[in-house]
């Protein structure tokens, strides 16, 4: 056999760089977790071939009440709401790790186009925030308030484009003529979304992609056949309900013991925990193989490999509405690191399963469109800037919400598929139609069910640190100020609740550059 030159050996880890005549074989293994409880599971990969980054993990849960269509995954993140923390480990070393994963993924989910949400994500992982114009497409001639006003071109606003299972709250009443047109029509989620048992007793199963939960795998494929250590994936799950009714609605307006996994239909009579069906959790791992000779050549030619990748570091802080209005400077860390971007959002700690997005959202400044004096109606403002290495990123603090939105686009290189009212609560583009009796938009914050479910709930911020500099010892400072925010939600089952809420949490993630080296089968990780 002629000797192979190093230049002739293809880069097996880079998708798209393999010559088309290279034989490739994919072997699929179904891995059971080696450890699995309702709070944690660990998968251990077999050290063979190259791990395909789009391998999938399957989950299923037992709904709190399997006799009712009354529970669903949060619409923004779907089954990813189960994941609280995820870590990819090699031996005892952590390659990448993300905390508060479901919140992190609420931000990442904004970049999924609506059509993908509707046609793919809703089925694979339960994400279902796609919008469509709600047309007055009925056939009667009654007024719009009664659902009439025939038009297949005039839309009254946007509604969730998930299923046509809308019920009519006016059905059977004297004024009700046409079901399809009713402005108060109400989307029923349960049966399509998380559903009770079917005849065989099985609930829907859902899947998540490895590359989605481990950003390392988005850019690299793991050459498991070259690694001598154990490669494992650890997943910590979000909190289940602490007791029979803790945290879920049915008159209960939340609390610290909330079920962080599912949302529930209001007034669901019997609610409780939603445990993970451990017997159905599995990892469908695809291992890629090339001819043995080629893989050996590759191993010999790459005794020292290095991977550059990004990891996300969470920094979170409780903050009161008063402090938000006064303006704050917060140190996010990052000293000595190369940080390429920062993104952050604001969550009410008591925002829970009574809301369509659960706690996986970001609150916009308060808007007040119900003020009796029209000249005082307003949208609150959020003023932001970042300072690092003694310089501000933007010469003038950013206040314009559309500019904030654009900054996300500049940061990620992708456009967020989020409607204006959903992002900044500006304008009335959402319809008054509901989901499970909850309004998509609202100006009322007194009760959980009257709060806006989509309006101003995707108000994430992001900034790209465009100088490619190492952060100095002072770290990154976030300057932020909100003119108004909605009152923090309160604890208790009274309606409206009486006790004060715990306020807001601001979560910020730093995208830091890391490097992993693979030398003689052993991986080392360090910050770039």
């Amino acid at each position, binding site marked *: 056999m002629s000797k192979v030159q190093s230049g002739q050996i293809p880069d097996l880890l880079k998708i798209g760089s393999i010559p088309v005549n290279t034989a490739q074989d994919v072997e699929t293994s179904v891995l059971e977790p080696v450890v699995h409880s309702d709070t944690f599971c660990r998968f251990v990969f077999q050290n063979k071939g190259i791990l395909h980054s789009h391998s999938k993990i399957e989950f299923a849960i037992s709904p709190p009440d399997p006799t009712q269509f009354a529970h669903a995954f949060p619409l923004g993140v779907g089954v990813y709401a189960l994941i609280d923390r995820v870590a990819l480990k090699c031996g005892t070393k952590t390659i990448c790790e993300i905390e508060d994963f479901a919140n992190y993924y609420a931000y990442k989910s904004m970049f999924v*186009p*609506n*059509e993908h949400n509707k046609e793919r994500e809703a089925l694979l992982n339960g994400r279902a925030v*796609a*919008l*469509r*114009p709600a*047309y007055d497409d009925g056939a009667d001639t009654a007024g719009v308030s009664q659902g009439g006003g025939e*038009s*297949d*071109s*005039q*839309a*009254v*606003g*946007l509604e969730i484009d998930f299923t046509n299972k809308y019920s009519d709250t006016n059905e059977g009443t004297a004024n009700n003529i046409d079901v399809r047109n009713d402005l108060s029509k109400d989307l029923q989620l349960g049966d399509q979304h998380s559903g009770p048992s079917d005849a065989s007793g099985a609930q829907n199963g859902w899947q998540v992609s490895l590359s989605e939960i481990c950003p390392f795998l988005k850019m690299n494929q793991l050459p498991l056949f070259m690694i001598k250590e154990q490669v494992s994936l650890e997943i910590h799950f979000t909190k289940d309900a602490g007791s029979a009714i803790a945290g879920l609605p049915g008159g209960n307006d939340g609390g610290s013991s909330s079920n962080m996994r599912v949302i529930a239909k209001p007034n669901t009579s019997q609610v409780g925990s939603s445990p993970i069906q451990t017997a159905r959790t599995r990892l469908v791992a695809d291992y890629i193989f090339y001819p043995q000779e080629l893989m050996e050549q590759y191993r010999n030619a790459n005794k020292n490999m290095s991977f550059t990748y990004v990891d996300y570091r969470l920094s979170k802080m409780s903050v009161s509405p008063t402090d938000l209005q006064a303006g704050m400077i917060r140190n996010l860390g990052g000293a000595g690191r190369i940080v390429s971007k920062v993104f952050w959002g604001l969550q009410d700690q008591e925002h829970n399963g009574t809301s369509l997005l659960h706690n996986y959202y970001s609150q916009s400044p308060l*808007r007040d*469109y119900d003020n009796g004096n*029209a*000249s*005082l*109606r*307003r*949208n*609150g*403002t959020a003023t932001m800037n970042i300072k690092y290495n003694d310089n501000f*990123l*933007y*010469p*003038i603090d950013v206040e*314009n*919400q*559309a*500019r904030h*939105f*654009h900054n996300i*686009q*500049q940061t990620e290189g992708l*456009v*967020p*598929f*989020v*409607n*204006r*009212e959903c*992002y*900044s609560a*500006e*304008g*009335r*583009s959402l319809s008054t139609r509901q989901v499970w009796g909850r309004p998509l938009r609202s100006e009322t914050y007194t009760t959980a069910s009257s709060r806006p479910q989509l309006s101003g709930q995707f108000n994430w911020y992001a900034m790209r640190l*465009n*100088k*490619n*500099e190492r952060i100095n010892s002072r770290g990154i400072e976030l300057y932020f100020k909100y003119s108004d925010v909605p009152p923090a939600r309160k604890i208790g089952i009274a309606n409206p609740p009486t006790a004060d809420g715990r306020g807001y949490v601001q979560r910020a993630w730093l995208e830091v550059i890391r490097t992993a080296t693979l030398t003689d089968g052993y991986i080392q990780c360090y910050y770039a």
Partner: protein
Amino acid sequence: MSSNVNLHITPSNVLSSGKISYKAGNPVIQFIVGEQDRLLLGNSIRVCGKFNIWKNAIGTTIPTSADNLSMDERTGVYATIDQLVIKSQATHQVIEHIRHYNRFMASYLPSTTSQQDGVGHLSETTLSLPNYNIQKLSVVDMEAGHTTKNDFCLHLPCGLFNGTQGIPLSGSGGVGGLLIELHLAPDNNVLYDNKATSVADALTDSYYEFSDVFLACEAVEDVRPPGQTSTFEYNSVSSYFASINSTNAIINFNLGLSRVLGIAMNFLPSFMINNLDYNGMTTGPLTNKDGRNCNIKQIIFTRGGQKYPYMYNLDLEQQDVPTQLTYDPVFIRNSLDATKSFAKTGRLQATTRTSRLDNPGAGPANFPIGTGTGQLTKTAEGGPTYTLGVGFDSISNQGISFSTESFGLNLITELTSDFPHACFVFAHAKNTLVFGPGGVQVLN
């Protein structure tokens, strides 16, 4: 290490009030991106600010849903930009000038974005939404219009800014800074009464207004040695205007461009231009005075008097079946080819509801106009996407020369009533910008 910087540039001609409106006599917004040793990243340029619409002349009343005041839902804030002019700040030489920029965007957006883009990110950045009523409720009838108004953050699609190369701002070996001018459109071409009764509805004083306008962009250090002559290639858009009023409509232009990639055009009944009763941004099909369909039956493109790029006549479906109410697929494909190669088109707004020659939502007549009973605008999914176009070179992407030969278009139509239509023509061509110590030169 890169040394990108974010720039924040306020208009050089803004009044002390910070408000800008056509009605108040400020029809031009001018930004100066100063001469500096940096490369301007064209795709990072955004015009930001606040946008508001007032119902009365003194700017104290916000329109409500009871008023019929609307604006074009697809183009959003783009509807307010009549001309985009980009000049060298040092020499004032025009680098790119797009007239009827809003009409260009009315055809460009449906060819490059989808309805879901309209529902999503475009609603935040350009204030467009894919339904006339939602756009009105959200933007025109802005509840917070007295205080915080509509925020917008607008990219300016044009040849120079869509390019991937950085634009050298240096005075020696660059353009010497940029002067960006936005010429605003008249209020009555941006706003309209959706019942065509603006006088009776007391909307004749309504106007739009900008405030807190600034230009945001990013620039990167220019590491090239100074004083060198270099070239910069970009795709430009040149605009032309004609009118047609015949069953045998003929358009002929000396484009004066040497590397033309495609030509697109849209139409509007002439009386609807600057008419507060009608949407001046709509891109509907040709129509007769009484609202009857006006089919285009045959299209012939010519170059220098010879058929080109098709060596044959394009007979549309309506030639044989006049009652066919959807656009001919060839018509749609050619219009997309004019902007972007059809094969590369990923997102577009042409659907079965926006590609119709009638308007089911407006009643029994087809696009009734002039009577006030219906409008081209009351259509689903953002309205019609009637753009006539042709691509000349989707393979080499080098374009076809029209520098010495004229472009011609021959349409056989059913325009039998005396009803002139404005025809806005846009030529998409490659340009080369040469700059150096001697100045700036644009090679068409």
